[in-house]
């Protein structure tokens, strides 16, 4: 009976789609010869296609609703198997070693173009992890993250233009500038949360871009700043190919550094305060957490990474202009965080590879790649709203030692 109802609904959907697409896909008016071409076969395709898709869609949606098939006893849930394996230190070490080998060998095995894309993907890993501090851990919806990225990029560009300052000096300065901007933005938003916060950060992102676009004396406006040098390698001149590979390895280093730092932050007093803030702001304050300080540190630290990546971005493209820092960029980084699973490092790494590499490798589908990309995102959010990898809370082992004496043994 249920199947029959499903069939009927799919049929209705197919008819609806046939009706909707009728004017565009069936009627073709030739204005020169003043004739109308009726392409009825298109209607048939649309009908069949939407019927099949809707049916498959319903099937999977039903599966999500009932929590998948029932497992017979003794059978291991694939999820728990994955968790058990990823918790096993041997498997973990093996996986990390394999990842390091692939990462090191990658530039030797592929073209400069591929290395370039990979560098971009790694930059988004760092940006994602940075934004994750603000959005995933502290739970502050931040839609203007790209502003800090721009601050970093322009810090390097302007410092080079006016004072000839190099990459390695600009890197900490860019990070510092972004941190300062983070604190600056932090002040007005401390009292806001949820939707209001999102709107203010969105506004801040747009203000930054518009200032860069219109204040020509300061930032040379939409024409941007060009001729920014790539990172130097102990004074050695590198050709484009070498410079690309060098930047790739630098990015690997930055990524590892970021993963290390953000993981440590997550498992600290500050990290717990952020999580508590995300979970319940009132209770968090009542437990003695200074809300203002916690929000400020989250904003400032999140911005630091954006600033650093801004400097790398300027060095990578050797050119900055405001067009690189649109809202779409913020949305992209936010998607990485949400898609990866809020708060999960591994999830964010996977998501940024997926979101950055997918559009590149979908180029084969040329016109349809963004459509496919959008579809994948929608499907992901319906079937795995918690993200690719759900953040697993750290566990502690607890031994009873006689009566009333508890000893703690930590386990990562």
């Amino acid at each position, binding site marked *: 009976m249920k199947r029959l109802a499903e069939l009927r609904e799919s049929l209705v959907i197919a008819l609806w789609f046939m009706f909707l697409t009728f004017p565009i896909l069936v009627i073709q008016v030739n204005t020169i010869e003043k004739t109308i071409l009726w392409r009825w076969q298109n209607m048939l395709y649309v009908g069949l296609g939407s019927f099949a898709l809707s049916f498959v869609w319903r099937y999977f949606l039903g599966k999500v609703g009932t929590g998948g098939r029932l497992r017979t006893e003794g059978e291991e849930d694939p999820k728990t198997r994955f968790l058990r394996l990823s918790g096993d230190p041997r498997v973990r070490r093996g996986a990390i070693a394999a990842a390091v080998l692939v990462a090191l060998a990658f530039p030797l095995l592929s073209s400069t173009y591929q290395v370039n894309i990979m560098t971009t993907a790694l930059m988004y890993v760092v940006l994602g992890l940075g934004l994750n501090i603000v959005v995933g851990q502290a739970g502050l919806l931040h839609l203007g993250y790209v502003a800090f990225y721009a601050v970093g990029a322009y810090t390097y560009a302007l410092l080079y233009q006016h004072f000839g300052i190099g990459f390695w000096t600009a890197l900490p300065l860019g990070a510092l500038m972004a941190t300062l901007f983070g604190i600056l933005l932090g002040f007005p938003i401390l009292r806001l949360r949820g939707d209001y916060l999102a709107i203010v950060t969105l506004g801040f992102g747009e203000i930054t871009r518009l200032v860069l676009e219109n204040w020509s004396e300061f930032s040379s406006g939409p024409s941007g700043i060009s001729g920014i040098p790539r990172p130097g390698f102990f004074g050695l001149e590198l050709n484009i190919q070498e410079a690309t590979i060098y930047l790739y390895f630098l990015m690997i280093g930055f990524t590892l550094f970021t993963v290390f730092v953000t993981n440590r932050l997550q498992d*600290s007093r*500050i990290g717990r305060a952020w999580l508590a803030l995300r979970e319940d702001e*009132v209770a968090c*304050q009542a437990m003695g957490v200074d809300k203002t300080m916690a929000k400020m540190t989250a904003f400032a630290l999140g911005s630091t990474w954006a600033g650093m990546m801004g400097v790398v971005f300027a060095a990578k493209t050797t050119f900055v202009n405001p067009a690189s820092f649109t809202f779409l960029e913020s949305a992209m980084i936010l998607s990485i965080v949400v898609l990866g699973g809020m708060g999960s490092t591994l999830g964010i790494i996977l998501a940024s590879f997926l979101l950055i590499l997918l559009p590149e490798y979908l180029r084969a589908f040329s016109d349809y790649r963004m459509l496919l990309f959008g579809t994948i995102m929608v499907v992901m959010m319906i079937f795995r709203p918690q993200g690719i990898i759900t953040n697993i809370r750290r566990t502690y082992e607890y031994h009873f030692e006689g009566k009333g004496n508890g000893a703690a043994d930590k386990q990562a």
Partner: protein
Amino acid sequence: METILETKNLTMNFGGIKALDRVDMDVRRGEICALIGPNGAGKTTFFNCITGIYPPSEGDVFIAPTEGKRRRINGLPVHKVTARGLARTFQNIRLFPDMTVLENVMVGRHCRTKAGVLGAIFRDRPTREEEKAVVTRSLAILERIGLADMVNTLARNLPYGDQRRLEIARALATDPFLLLLDEPAAGMNPRETDALEELILKIKDEENISILMIEHDMRMVMSISNRIVVLDYGKKIAEGTPAEIWENPVVIKAYLGEEFETGD
């Protein structure tokens, strides 16, 4: 007995409504004081005023954690009030649902520890030692509360009664001298309530923490509190021992309404 919390003339206006109207009350060291009153009497507002969630419109709140040292705390932000030694639970449970039981308690240690961002990144010796102390202390609290075998469970997955206990454990982790419990027995079955009574008495006797609680369960209020304060329409209408309150006509009138007084 010495006073450890005192309010003078405490008034809270919400627009035209006086949620609290010149309330003078005190809590003494080592007692369990119950705050009762019909729904909407201003009990939770009273808690929110003394813990800094609302700044009171008028009046003062004083605390005296150690003998002789009296300090005014109204106007202080919430986290500073907690740091001064007032810890509270909430009427509708407000745990951190996606954190583990242990982590919930560890957050409570926040105001007694001080590792910063650099400490978190470099994990130097003081930070590691502090972190270890936080874990050990939190586990010890959980063991006393009776949640030691659930340390790694997510708070959202705890049974209702245990969630209430965890809220108390989390509040204890802030090292309070006065624990404010907002309807700790709400929604509990009689067995859970008995266990809770036992727990509250244990906290009072073994940890030397005084308790101020809002409660509707009269059986529990009468059996464990030393003193009862009654609020009605934001005003304090009575104060006394359970026996006195039980027989106070003003209180009976507030709870049961006019007609019972005439019918009596």
